[in-house]
């Protein structure tokens, strides 16, 4: 399922030539629309790698989990620290699981 951009929050990375999500997307799928907001231009090519969700500086992107993993209502949210990443997974019953990893060196 493709990333969903909250247009209220997205500031198009201040409408610079390439927003961060565009830079980071391995499939080069994210781009700026005419309204200066980011969107996924080819939703079926998205691998749900969540790179854009992780990097978005204004927390405007949410990746909907594919239905094989969790039905509507299930959520997987990353939060980036300086050298950690914290995952929160919420299933359709509201059960929460949390994971924290070191993810970078330096």
């Amino acid at each position, binding site marked *: 399922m493709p990333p969903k951009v909250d247009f209220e*929050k997205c500031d198009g*990375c*201040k409408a*610079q030539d*390439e*927003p*961060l999500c565009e*830079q*980071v997307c391995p499939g080069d799928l994210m781009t700026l629309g005419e309204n200066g907001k980011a969107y996924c231009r080819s939703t079926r090519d998205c691998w749900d790698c969540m790179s854009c969700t992780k*990097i*978005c*500086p*204004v*927390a*405007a992107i*949410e990746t909907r989990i594919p239905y094989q993993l969790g039905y509507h209502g299930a*959520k997987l*949210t990353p*939060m*980036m*620290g*300086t*050298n*950690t990443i*914290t995952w*929160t997974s*919420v299933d359709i019953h509201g059960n*929460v699981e*949390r994971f*924290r990893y070191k993810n*970078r*060196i*330096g």
Partner: protein
Amino acid sequence: MIQVKQPTSQIRVYVWDPDGCLEKSLDLQSLMGQCAKSTNVVSCEKVDDPSATEFIETLGRDVGNNLFDRIIWVGNLDDSTLRRLREPLSSSGLNPYMQIQCDLKAQGICDEAVDPPVRFRKALTLLKMALARARLLEPLEPIYLPATDSVAIIGGGVAGLHTAVSLLELGYGVHLIERQSGVGGKTALLERLYPRICDPHCGLAVVIRQLAQYERFSLHTLATVRGLEGSPGNFTAKVLKQPRFVAEDRCNGCGLCQAACPVSISANTDWFQDEPPFPASTGLNALVPATIKAIHPSKPMAFPYAFTIEREFCPEGCDACRSACPNGAVVPDQVPEEKTIQTGAVLVTTGWDPYPLSRLNEFGYGIHRRVIGNLEMERLLGSDIAAGFKHVAFIQCAGSRDERHLKYCSAVCCSATLKQVRSLKERMPDIACTIFYQDIRTPGFEEDLYKQVRNLDNVRFVRGLPAGVEAQDGKGPLILTAEDTFSGKPIRLEADLLVLAGGLAPSTQAAQVANALNLPTTRDGFFESHHQCYPEESQRTGIYVGGCAREPMNVAQSIESSQRAALKAIRFLKETVRVDPTYPVIDRGKCDQCKRCVEECPFSSFTFDEKKFPQPELTRCRQCGNCMGVCPLGAISLRHRTMRQFAAQIEVLETSFMGSREEPLILAFLCENDAYLAAAEAHRIGLPVPPNVIQMRVSCAGAVNNALIADALSLGVDGVMIGGCKDGHCHYINGNRLVLKRSGDLQDKLKTMMIEPQRVRFDALEIRDSVKYVECVEAFVGDLTAMGPNPFKL
């Protein structure tokens, strides 16, 4: 990125406890014992007097023998002690940036009301945090950048001229850039100055004579600034000079050309439409005659002495002036010339221009020729054209304090009108004057002027503005109808002349200058200023604003304010400019060139290097750290307060010192300008600050990166508090707003993570808000207790 192994650090911890407070309130020996056993610590000792010569000598020797390479001072060393330590230690090889302080008392360790074990564990946590940071310290050296010891002053009015003289007297070079052909600005157009009621040309002429004596003075007339590059200390200004058609070095101002010139043009044709209502006068002063020739002396004052030609009025093929000139100074084929000026700082004294009174048609300006503005009145006062007038009316706040025109008070018009009335009455004691006003504003000693004028015969003040202005037969005396709002009676009177006290609008060139210098302006078009503690400071380092370019003010205030601007600019007018080594650096391995730092830097100090990486202009940067806070990748760090140092300190909080899982643990990022000081004061005067909070000092609330908050929350810290300035009070313009916006985004993310967004809290604190700080912490502790522990807590 590969982790570079830190060279092993050797930390000495010195505990300075002059009042025995730490000794008394906790088991200091055991604390020091635990500290001494920590990694990288070579010793942990008590010190009786850190500024004692003997102690400093021992330290110096030990540094020289490589026994240690960094120090943690536990206790509160005041600035003078630190200063005394700095010199001897750095000469023996200990970099000043290899020492940090860990002030336990300012974190409430000595608060007797708190459970001793909690206090002990908190002290240990704070020590561990200090150690974590100390391990990551790096020796830093200040940078000295080459600079130029001359300054560019934009605007040669009274403010610019006086400032130029002051700077020249101090030995600096001055480039004065003036858009008109001569200097003097608006002041030169005035007949008299208040409060001394003397001729402004007297003061200006003195200044001009002084200027001419200095070799390092260069005057660029008919010139505008087209662009500014570089950084403070080393600006390059592009100046476009319009042709004067007279060679400045050859013209001696003899005036033969003026006599030969066949073309007369009426000056100030813009304010009398078809024919002048009064006979043209040359009475004001010979330099600004009402009618001038196409070749004429510089205006408004004849400095530089060279004449100038209004080429658009020259008839085809006319050669009169060139053949009349004995020195061959007339150069008809001069073209615009672009110059570059090297300058260390820029002073903006562009001044003001009268608000276009033609927009005020309710008072008949531009309709009736007997309605004039107050600048025109100045010219009229110097002539004899008022002879025969029986009654002159004045309207105050014509355009000022009016939602439709200028929203502000123009500050000088009341006194200017009173001065005009006084001058008029001096010359023609029998003339009657009526002043229509809303409020008379004569601050300070200007009140004397008001009293003097009020006591004159035949001078009447009417509160209320005229509703209608009409002219008899379209040309004759004016009929004014108004209502005196005090008596409620209608007034109808006949006046020979109506003077509108028009407002002061920003100079018409202000927008162009703002554009060329990338200098923010207010809604009204004046240049942005701090307006209070640093009035001369613009939002661009190295560019200072004085005089009416900043806000409406009188002549004395203009001179004063621009002198202050000059005083501040001197910092950059040296051979080298010193930059503290705590400037931001960008980790190129991490930087994604997203340019957010460039966008949000409050002082626009980022440029791009050859590989498109953002690079701060070091002299322009004020080291507030907002770039560090804003970077989505945490790639920017202020040196000496790096992201890694913060992260390492936060990591210590993984184990709570509070004793039980239910007791909330709070990390407070406090702005060192206000909130941190309020918190420290709260502990100093013994307010009951809950022990749950660890205070972390940051350069600005805007320097707090979301990644650090995320770190703290994911490590199990129950709540993160950000203490910043009140809205509009931020020392770095809007750091508080930036952090509020970012932490708001994070709060939204916390919601989707099924974590209470209230775990991140922003509080606006002023420096004396110690009690409020305690209340905020208490409320936060209460909220967090109600929420229960952070789900990430061990």
